[in-house]
């Protein structure tokens, strides 16, 4: 441990701690402000008196949001999407990554398959042709339009494949000598040994599904099918409170600004819940990205 105790160095330390503290608080301030607004009464919220602490503290904005059936419906759609989308992603990632992690001798045609996937990752048809394909497949207004088009995130699959390649060959060889098929090898050796990588990819996939909104905006023609983030867009970006199903009489009591704030916070809570896990697997995810041959 090196100690720098000259005056200049200590001055730098003081400046450093102060700067980082201010920077972090600036990053957080907008969210704290919205949180304070969402807990404030109508008059101070509308007039803009609230800064970082609620005025006329009330939970009514949250009661209003949680009591709105349209809002709850979009919340449920989002939960269903995250569950089906993430399990589909992980299943397809693992099933595709396993054969590709083999040598061309064990899996003949590997080279062709690799280029088939890599080219699809590097080049894409773009928004319009993809939309037309999804529509022609009859997927508009179905859950399928949200989870099927990106059922195989190719970059994640490559990370998984690289991780599988790092699994010691000796384990597999001894299992094969004992007569284990590829299914058993995958299930009993590769998956248990890859749990950290699978956990990382699961979290990233779940967060991506929770946060996705644009696909539903183009694939759902009925607001009733919107998942939460897309639904939130109609409220916070298009400022259309009629969708929320909030009784106009309630708006005489509550500030629409505070209600929007409450909805933003509710949409953020699930991320905050998994945030400690996200952090833990974050660094490992970055290392995963750096896994080389």
């Amino acid at each position, binding site marked *: 441990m090196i100690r720098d105790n000259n005056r200049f*160095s200590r001055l730098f330390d003081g400046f450093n701690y102060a700067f*980082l503290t201010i920077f972090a608080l600036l990053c957080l301030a*907008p969210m704290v402000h919205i949180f304070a607004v969402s807990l404030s009464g109508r008059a101070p919220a509308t007039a803009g008196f609230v800064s970082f602490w609620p005025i006329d503290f009330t939970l009514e904005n949250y009661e209003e949001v949680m009591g709105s059936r349209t809002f709850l419906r979009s919340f449920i759609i989002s939960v269903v999407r995250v569950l089906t989308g993430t399990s589909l992603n992980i299943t397809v990632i693992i099933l595709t990554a396993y054969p590709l992690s083999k040598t061309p001798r064990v899996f003949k045609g590997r080279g062709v398959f690799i280029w088939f996937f890599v080219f*699809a990752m590097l080049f894409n048809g773009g928004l319009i042709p993809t939309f*037309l394909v999804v529509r022609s497949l009859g997927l508009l207004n179905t859950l399928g339009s949200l989870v099927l088009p990106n*059922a195989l995130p190719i970059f994640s699959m490559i990370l998984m494949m690289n991780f599988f390649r790092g699994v010691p060959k000796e384990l597999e060889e001894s299992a094969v000598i004992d007569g284990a098929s590829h299914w058993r090898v995958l299930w009993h050796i590769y998956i248990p040994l890859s749990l950290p990588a699978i956990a990382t990819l699961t979290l990233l996939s779940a967060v991506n599904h929770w946060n996705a909104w644009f696909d539903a905006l183009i694939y759902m023609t009925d607001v009733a099918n919107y998942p939460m983030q897309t639904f939130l867009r109609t409220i916070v970006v298009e400022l259309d409170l009629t969708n929320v199903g909030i009784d106009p009489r309630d708006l005489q009591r509550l500030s629409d*600004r505070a209600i929007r704030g409450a909805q933003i916070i509710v949409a953020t809570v699930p991320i905050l819940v998994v945030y400690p896990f996200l952090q833990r697997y974050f660094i490992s995810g970055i290392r995963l990205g750096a896994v080389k041959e």
Partner: protein
Amino acid sequence: MGDSQSRPYSRRCKRIPVKTGTSSRMTIRQYIKRAWPLYVMIVPGVIFVLLFRYYPMYGIVIAFQDFSPAKGFANSPWVGWENFEFLFSFPEFGRILRNTVLIAVVKIVADQIGAIILALLLNEARILLFRRTIQTLIYLPYFLSWIVLGGILLDILAPHGILNQAIGNFGIKPQLFLGSNNWFRGTVILSGFWKNVGFSTIIYLAALTAINPVLHEAAAIDGAGRFRRIWHITLPGIRPTIVLLAALSLGDVLEAGFEQILTLYSPAVYRTGDIIDTNVYRVGLVSAQYSLAGAVGLFKSFISFFLIVLSYYLADRFAGYRIL
């Protein structure tokens, strides 16, 4: 093998073929019996990629057609390069291309420089709990959607929002941060920085932890002060990461932030804020001019493809990074 004398000999020596395992002697029937599950496993992935990646690539033909949904990809009339001629003669096209590249490049540069500085400063903060706390706070926005962040920004940047109130205390008139062409790009770049800088910082911090502390100790014993150590040890230590991220970011030169701009922009700022992706969305999906938007989209996919391939090549060449 290590000493120099044995090398010429081993170079001259012919490789003796070694039998590796039993697989080389397998018959086709034995191979299929063993390997068929591998081909079953890969089927779902192949189907999804064929349907949702390759089929849309075939759909690119709409850029050379006067596409109508009723006739489909196969039967719409061909028009050759007409859509592209129309596009390139349109002054709007140059504008969206310039906006896209300008916003994307400034974002990349700001993000990388900001992340390097933040990582170096965090690395110098010795109190572990402090470091953890700051990290936790600065990369929270990375995990929130642009709808959540956009909702927050639309509120705080509004004419009567908290930011305008704050600058009002200094006697500055309220500014339209999202509604004026003077401010829009700056707002997009700064809010993009807010969302992404924490993530890039973590990448650099991971690289910093890999630097051998012995180097620092040796330099300290030799009398190198704190800043000389940062300059001569820490910075060279993360140089491969800097080079790698610089090379990879080349692939993002046309990615100005579609979801962000779609959330924040309005017709008032199309002049400075409209980018290729938002334009494709409006022309293609809002106005249903599929062929024209398809042509713009193809232009972008085509350029992006070469940029990404080049970026991977440079990352391999200069930083030894390979995805495969």
